[in-house]
């Protein structure tokens, strides 16, 4: 086992189909789509449940159930039902995104200081303004941590796409194993790991940028 595959310049040719840059690109494509779909479903649901308190058992149990669901098994089931293609992969990966986003949206809304929400209403904000100007910004730190953990999981798990004939960094693992090219397998594992860490760092930067400094545990400022 060695790093020769990873450091072979030929494998980094951006125009080469099956080269590492194109695999990264398709991998990130699955990740982005799954995060988008999962968030579009889980965020409003979590916010609603957290805001109203209705169906909170759903939010908590969906979180636990979702975590224990094997993605590969779900993917195979979807392929059996729907046939090969992008759809079963996106369903399996989106299901992975839903629990952390749903649970954190719920927890974020539940943790709000109700006196502040009362003040917002009492000052004459309409319900939508209370949500977008007060509740969401205040819940954002918790929300972002849920989204980051979802992103990490999806980056690591999106390799399953290759198991059903699609692209992504899983190709390096599956194809490498098929021909006993462990250098290729190692290259795949390393690129996925670096990608995961890189994405998390990027999201950490986004979080710093979108979350108000006033919500930090010990806000720094001119004093």
């Amino acid at each position: 086992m060695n790093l020769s595959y990873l450091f072979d310049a030929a494998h980094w040719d951006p125009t080469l189909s099956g080269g590492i840059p194109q695999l990264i690109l398709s991998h990130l494509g699955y990740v982005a789509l799954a995060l988008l779909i999962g968030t579009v479903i889980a965020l409003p649901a979590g916010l609603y449940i957290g805001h109203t308190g209705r169906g909170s058992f759903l939010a908590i149990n969906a979180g636990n159930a979702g975590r224990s669901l094997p993605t590969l098994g779900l993917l195979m089931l979807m392929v059996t039902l729907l046939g090969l293609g992008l759809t079963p992969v996106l369903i399996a990966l989106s299901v992975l995104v839903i629990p952390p986003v749903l649970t954190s949206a719920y927890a974020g809304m539940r943790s709000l200081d109700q006196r502040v929400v009362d003040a917002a209403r009492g000052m004459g904000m309409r319900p939508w303004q209370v949500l977008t100007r007060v509740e969401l910004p205040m819940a954002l730190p918790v929300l972002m941590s849920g989204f980051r953990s979802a992103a990490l999981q999806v980056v690591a798990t999106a390799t399953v796409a290759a198991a059903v004939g699609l692209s992504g960094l899983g190709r390096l693992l599956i194809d490498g194993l098929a021909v006993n090219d462990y250098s290729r397998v190692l290259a795949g594992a390393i690129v996925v790991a670096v990608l995961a860490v890189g994405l998390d760092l990027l999201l950490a930067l986004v979080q710093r940028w979108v979350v108000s400094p006033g919500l930090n545990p010990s806000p720094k400022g001119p004093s």
Partner: protein
Amino acid sequence: MITFEDVVKVYPGGSTAVDHLSLELPTGKTTVLVGPSGCGKTTSLRMINRMVRPTSGRVLIDGRDVAEQDEALLRRGIGYVIQHAGLFPHRTVLDNVATVPMLLGCTRKQARTDALGLLERVGLSAEFAKRYPAQLSGGQQQRVGVARALAADPPIMVMDEPFSAVDPVVREGLHREFLRLQKDLGKTIAMVTHDIDEAIKLGDVVAIFRQGGRLAQVGTPREVLANPADDFVAEFVGRDRGLRSLSFESAADLPVRPLSEVGDLALDDAGRPVGYGSFTRADSLRLVTDLAIISPAGIAVRVDAEGVADGVVRHHDLVDHLAARRREQP
């Protein structure tokens, strides 16, 4: 004027929070709703800006039923101050204060400029503007809360225990600021407190509630202290209500003795008393009584505007004065 017309609030489950309340809160005055916990004072207060809806009866502002007005627009026209201030933690102090003007369509720039002026008005310097609420003390947060409520210059202020979450020294300062501001602004204020001392100090009118959401007595602080309607009110305003009522008596008419009567009175070069508490004509009889009791010699020293001693009052002068007053107004 804010009018409660036979207002009832029954919560699901059958507990009556407010029981047939009829009350008028005069324009430009501070009306304090006071009573033990569970007496319905906060529920009543929150009906003014429709945070609570009455089960029956009406709440009117200048003759218009609040139930018939747009909820958000109604609230933007009423300053709202709550316990612990309830500031938005993710917004700077300046943006907290600018909230309602911006809801009303003011530009951000204009709202912020106005907010700076308001901060100054409540005794906070411009350096606080860029801070976040978590970086302020409780008293400072409460000042920001008052500035935020005043930002759109609403004619009415609704204040729910605004000063109860801060320590007594800070509260004292906030009370002074409140009275100074209200003297300038003349808002119609409805305030809730459980502290009868605060009610008497800040209120032009005091409405005392009893358990079960019933109004026990309404009147000026002076009336309530002098003539409690019943045993509950007498008990609630406290045993030392006689002493408290002296807060309303001016020391201006109090006869003083010449300084020469007190041989050992220590004065500095400018003629100011040293080691004695002093009062001016503008102070209350309560202060004079307090000074005379504290002083080992049993005297209180009167000073003029420059702080120069111009007379003394002895213990028994005070008693004679009060007895004379009582004879005059039976």
